[in-house]
């Protein structure tokens, strides 16, 4: 019994020890202090923003400067050089800004795709066993990383307008394609009802490929037999629409560009401004992506390659099945930040005359004088671009993350 009692007393003592933290003074409790600091910071930020907004509004009112977003409905009354949607000077500022938004979107979209392709190729080339390939890609990466992107844009733009001839002496390397200092103009088919079905066939082909791949992977896992997935996918994606096009009577009327007056009419024109911006951004950012890809591949231990080779995989399979899935975990986070850089750098378009969002917003600000609203719109738009790119890439990053079993 005494033993039990002393044991009981010992337990009580322990209990007392564990309950003492409740008596720590408030100012010395890190958990509570942390909450206090956060509240204070939040209050400070709130007060500061209130002061800034309030003061700005008061200043604007005293100087009788109009505020608000009412100007978005007013007639823009200025033309925009290139547009993905129908636009004329009679449209509203809102629509003009939408044109700029889409122009930024398209250059970022193609820029990101081409950058990833070129960067991956260069990164792998730098690690190849081919001496020439290694040297060339190293020189490329060092050169393009070290020159400011704005200078590169000026260079490519000047390259296009200085080297290429005027429209009247346009180069015509293949029928229906013209190259001049107004851009690359090429023929496109006139719209025909049949193209609706062709696009439908392409989508059906895509869905079929998706399920085919799932089935092939399952079969391979079960039986070990490999299905020629690449060839069948291509056949489905290209063959199916082609058959539909042929069945629909093979409409082939082309909208062929023709020189009329000063410029070409008809066809589709890729302007020197767009080409210079895309080229400059892709060549610059790809150099950084190449280094990220190289770092990612090098982070995978050499033993992995040797093990994969020893079980008889070909070098393409080693890369695709063993190295890249592991390297991607290292590559994706910094790659996301390069994608964001490319999107943000696209605002340098104003320097070489491509009508991106910043350029259109700049004209709007100048015509309406509403700088704060205009700058706020620019900030919101780039925030939307950045956050949605991050969201997609974070989703992808999670998908490829190491799954612990």
């Amino acid at each position: 019994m005494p033993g039990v009692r002393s044991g009981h007393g010992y337990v009580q003592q322990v209990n007392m020890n564990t309950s003492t933290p409740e008596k720590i003074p408030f100012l010395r409790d890190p958990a509570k202090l942390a909450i206090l600091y956060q509240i204070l910071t939040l209050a400070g930020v709130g007060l500061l923003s209130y002061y800034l907004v309030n003061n700005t509004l008061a200043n604007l009112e005293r100087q009788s400067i109009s505020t608000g977003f009412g100007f978005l409905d007013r007639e823009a009354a200025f033309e925009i050089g290139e547009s993905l949607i129908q636009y004329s000077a009679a449209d509203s500022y809102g629509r003009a800004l939408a044109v700029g938004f889409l122009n930024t979107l398209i250059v970022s979209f193609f820029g990101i795709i081409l950058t990833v392709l070129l960067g991956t190729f260069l990164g792998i080339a730098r690690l190849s066993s081919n001496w020439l390939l290694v040297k060339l890609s190293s020189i490329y990466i060092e050169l393009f990383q070290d020159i400011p992107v704005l200078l590169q844009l000026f260079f490519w733009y000047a390259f296009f307008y200085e080297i290429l001839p005027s429209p009247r002496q346009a180069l015509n390397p293949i029928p229906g394609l013209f190259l001049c200092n107004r851009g690359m103009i090429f023929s496109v088919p006139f719209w025909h009802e049949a193209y609706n079905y062709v696009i439908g066939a392409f989508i059906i082909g895509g869905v079929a490929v998706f399920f085919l791949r799932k089935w092939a992977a399952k079969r391979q896992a079960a039986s070990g037999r490999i299905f020629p997935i690449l060839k069948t996918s291509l056949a489905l994606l290209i063959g199916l629409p082609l058959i539909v096009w042929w069945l629909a009577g093979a409409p082939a009327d082309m909208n062929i560009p023709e020189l009329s007056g000063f410029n070409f009419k008809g066809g589709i024109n890729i302007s020197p401004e767009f080409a210079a911006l895309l080229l400059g951004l892709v060549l610059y950012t790809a150099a950084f992506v190449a280094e990220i890809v190289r770092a990612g591949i090098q982070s995978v231990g050499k033993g992995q390659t040797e093990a994969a080779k020893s079980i008889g995989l070909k070098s393409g399979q080693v890369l695709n099945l063993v190295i890249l899935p592991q390297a991607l975990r290292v590559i994706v986070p910094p790659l996301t930040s390069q994608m964001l850089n490319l999107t943000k750098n696209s605002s340098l378009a104003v320097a070489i005359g491509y009508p991106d969002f910043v350029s259109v917003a700049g004209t709007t600000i100048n015509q309406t004088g509403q700088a704060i609203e205009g700058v706020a719109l620019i900030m919101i738009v780039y925030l939307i671009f950045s956050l949605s790119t991050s969201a997609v890439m974070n989703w992808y990053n999670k998908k490829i993350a190491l799954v612990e079993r």
Partner: protein
Amino acid sequence: MRELKRVVPTVVVAFCLSAGVAMAGTLADVKAKGFVQAGVNGELFGFGKPDEKGIWRGLDVDTARAVAAAVFGNADKVKYTPLTAKTRFTALQSGEIDVLTRNATQTLSRDTDLGLDFVQVNYYDGQGFLVPNKLGVKSAKELDGASVCVLPGTTTEQNLADYFRVNKMKMNPVVIENNAELAKAFFAGRCDCLTSDASQLAGIRAVAPAPGDYSILPEIISKEPLAPAVRHGDNQWKDIVNYSVLALLEAEELGITSENIDEMMKSTDPRVQRFLGVTPGNGKALGLDEKWAYNIIKQVGNYGEVFERNVGVKTSLMLERGLNALWTNGGLMYSPPFK
């Protein structure tokens, strides 16, 4: 043990326009700091640009110097802020500069929405087209389908769109923010024509590889009264800037130049006596020294001298007086009486 949470410092980015603007009279502020802060172009030859020695030259620069001469009796008491077309009005609104003399076009919306007041026009300009002679274009009406190089951030883009809409023509604008890059693209043939105010076209042509290969088309498609501007609401300061510009005109009309001004002090013409402060009154009305107009003309010269020195036919801009001649010579320059 629980992990300790750390407080993450938050960074706040603030709009620059929220800074307060001094409410005291601009004249008192200017006198207290000892110089006039003028917003100028900085890149436009003939209007506002430093020469090879770093001394500011130009019609707009001389206008700012006239204001300094009126306030301080010393035309050199000016500090210049080079501004772009985009930043110029914000700089004035926020109080960064005291007067904007930067080839800015007076328009209704700028006079009202932007909280500015424009004063007497110091150059009547108009938007025109510069074309290479080899294009064979003789009139702007022949420009249907053309690619047009435009400098952004001005009324230029709007005038251009209006002109082509009215004449039912199509065009493709190429808007480049940088003056030099725009000129380079145009000279290399990226565009069929370049549009801007005629005075600027003359300036751009002057730096062409072969200026003789380019001409300005006869059509002037807009009215561009270029006028200095001040903040809305300070009437005394507006009067001072306004009459400093008008003094340049009045002096030319009265035949007073920087060279003959000391003889003119002895003139018996009552208009000259009032203008030069021999008969006092004008200075007191403006809150300035009675010799304010004397100081302007003595140190800066009259409007004719300023024009010929900066943009006239003997300069590389080779601009005629045209609309900028005195009303007595068929121009638009006209000053109310100084009495």
